[in-house]
């Protein structure tokens, strides 16, 4: 136990003292603060936009009685169709609208793009609105009455019997991306750390000083805690910024966030996050011990990266509410379940029983894998030269007397 604590303390302090680790944590914390302030920044930008919204391009009203119907700037209103066409041709305007009447227009484009098509659609929609309003007015319905009719609300008594996946989607995506990045980054870190010990010939000193179990588990737990420290620092920074700015959030955003942050879901995410790190890191550690040089690590860990990518894709399918065989089976396979099952649970396609079952299964698999990894690590300690294949290492680690 003392050896495990010593290795853990050393690995943890070495990791969190690294300049790269500190710099990354600070950058991510700044990003979290910025993200927490985004609703305020964008809300004020949208407020500014709505007050003086104008249309893009130039306009010529062939029927002078329609002048001012559309919100174009005066500078972009032309006296003749030729003037407008020339302005589009020489690039002064990106497009030009000739309004013949409320249901007929000619549009000039310098280049026809998806953006200009969208702007053109807005103009057509406004003209259609003006046309309907004018027709209704001629039949005795005032524009205000018409607007009031359009704004008639339909009261919905929403009874969600399962989970509201629309509010959980955002947290699900955040979980998938974070666990994907952290597993890949810290997995690579642990594999490199093991390979470096072998490369620098430190390993023989280590395994004669303490048990391989202490070395593997101390390293895995140390780096898992380092990852949690980093995530914790980022979440704290974002949380503090959120609490400070919370009162300035638009009401819609506040409602959305209060629905999105579900305490039980956060617990499930945290548990699976820790399991994912532990599970993949023991595997990465074993693979790191199979190479003799640090530069061979990336090749050795490629199969695990493939597993992580597949898990990532399955998790995205699950986030969309898919219930096909891939997602269902994947959510029970330990390497995928840590990604998929919490997502299935968050969108309501898995129950508490299933989440507990997959957690137990993953935990058992992690312990078994840790045992195998320790054997591989121990066996691979003094094997130098070309990279050893994983299955060869497993076979030899359990059959060899060495």
């Amino acid at each position, binding site marked *: 136990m003392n050896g495990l604590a010593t290795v853990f303390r050393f690995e943890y302090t070495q990791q969190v003292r690294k300049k790269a680790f500190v710099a990354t944590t600070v950058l991510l914390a700044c990003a979290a603060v910025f993200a927490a302030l985004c609703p305020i920044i964008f809300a004020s930008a949208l407020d500014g936009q709505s007050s003086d919204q104008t249309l893009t391009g130039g306009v010529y009203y062939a029927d002078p009685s329609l002048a001012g119907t559309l919100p174009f700037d005066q500078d972009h209103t032309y006296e003749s169709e030729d003037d407008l066409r020339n302005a589009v041709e020489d690039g002064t305007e990106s497009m030009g609208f000739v309004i013949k009447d409320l249901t007929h227009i000619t549009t000039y484009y310098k280049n026809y793009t998806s953006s200009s098509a969208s702007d053109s659609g807005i103009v057509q929609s406004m003209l259609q609105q003006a046309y309907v309003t004018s027709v209704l007015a001629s039949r005795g319905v005032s524009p205000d009455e018409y607007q009031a009719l359009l704004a008639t609300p339909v009261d919905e008594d929403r009874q969600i019997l399962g989970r509201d996946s629309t509010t959980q989607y955002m947290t699900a995506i955040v979980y998938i991306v974070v666990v994907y990045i952290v597993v890949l980054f810290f997995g690579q870190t642990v594999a490199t750390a093991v390979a470096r010990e072998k490369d620098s010939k430190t390993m*023989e000193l280590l395994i004669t000083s303490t048990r391989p179990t202490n070395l593997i588990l101390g390293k895995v737990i140390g780096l898992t805690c380092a990852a949690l420290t980093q995530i914790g620092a980022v979440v704290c920074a974002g949380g503090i910024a959120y609490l400070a700015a919370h009162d300035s959030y638009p009401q819609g955003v506040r409602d959305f966030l209060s629905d999105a942050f579900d305490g039980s879901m956060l617990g499930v995410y945290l548990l699976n996050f820790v399991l994912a790190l532990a599970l993949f890191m023991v595997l990465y550690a074993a693979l790191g011990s199979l190479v003799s040089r640090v530069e061979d690590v990336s090749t050795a860990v490629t199969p695990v990266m493939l597993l992580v990518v597949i898990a990532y894709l399955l998790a995205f399918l699950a986030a969309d509410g898919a219930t096909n065989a891939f997602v269902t089976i994947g959510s029970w396979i330990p390497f995928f379940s840590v990604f998929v099952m919490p997502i299935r649970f968050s969108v309501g396609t898995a129950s508490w029983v299933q989440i507990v079952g997959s957690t137990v299964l993953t935990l058992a698999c992690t312990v078994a894998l840790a045992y195998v990894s320790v054997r591989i690590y121990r066996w691979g300690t003094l094997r130098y030269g070309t990279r050893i294949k994983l299955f060869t290492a497993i076979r030899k680690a359990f059959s060899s007397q060495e």
Partner: protein
Amino acid sequence: MQLDITDVCKSFEGRQVLHSLSFSVTSGRAMGFLGRNGAGKSTTFRCLMQVFRQDSGSFTVDGRPLDPAEHRIGYLPEERGMYAKTSLVDQLEYFACLKGASRKDARRDALGWIRYFGLDEYAEKKLETLSKGNQQKIQIAQAFLGDPDIIVLDEPFSGLDPVNAQVFKDAIRSMVKKGKLVIFSSHQMAYVEEMCDDVTVIDAGRIVASGPLEKIRKDAGRGLYAIEPTPGASDAIRTAILATGREATCHGDLLLTPRDDAFLRGFVAEHFDRIASCGDWRPSMQDIFISLTGADESTDNASDVGASDATGSPDANASDASADKTAERTDK
């Protein structure tokens, strides 16, 4: 304390590399464990340190199985390295803690050895910022951490300059004086002769000699007497010996002849002015080593140990063995 290595066998993938090794090491006496490259020295140490498990045989301390958790062992492997990007004191503290020391004691011990090797000013620096020689001192220091009872050093002098080697020799000597059990391997026979009380020589996984160094040298001397003629007198002395009907073999600057006290007393008195020194012949460890482990490849071995072109057997002709290395003599 006595470490007994008894009938240790080890094979790798069907090839046996250790054949029933048996020898003992006692505390307060330094044991040199010698052998050519690939003879099985490092494998023996690794079995001792439980890096590998031996196929059969045992390692016992005072009759009880060796247990690294119970017996404090300082180990310096042949292929050694440490954390390049970690400060000296941090990594020595780490290794001391792994050996069971408390953090406070570990740090004090680490700083003590850093000071011993004259590296105080680098204590907080990363290992990679040190010269290769200073890095080696730190590697050596880790073997002495935690006041070990047993010290196992695999090629400890490899790569050390004479000054650093002297510092290290002093450290080993102080450990031996403290009653520690010290065993080390080396290719540098001069160090072995200087440092060791006992020697075990291994060849192709088999022990070919083991015991007190002096006894091994005496036995290797085969009752021969060494006469060192003054410069230019070698031929005359040799002729004089041969004229008495006795053998006289050249070995470097020495003439070797079977011991016969009555004859020698008269002969030395007669040729006193042409004899620089004389005494029982004690072959050097280098000669003994080459003789025991492969006379047919003596040139390779000689280059390994960085010394003479000696052909191995003490009674064979030697072309360039220096007198101070090939014999231990008594002054006239």
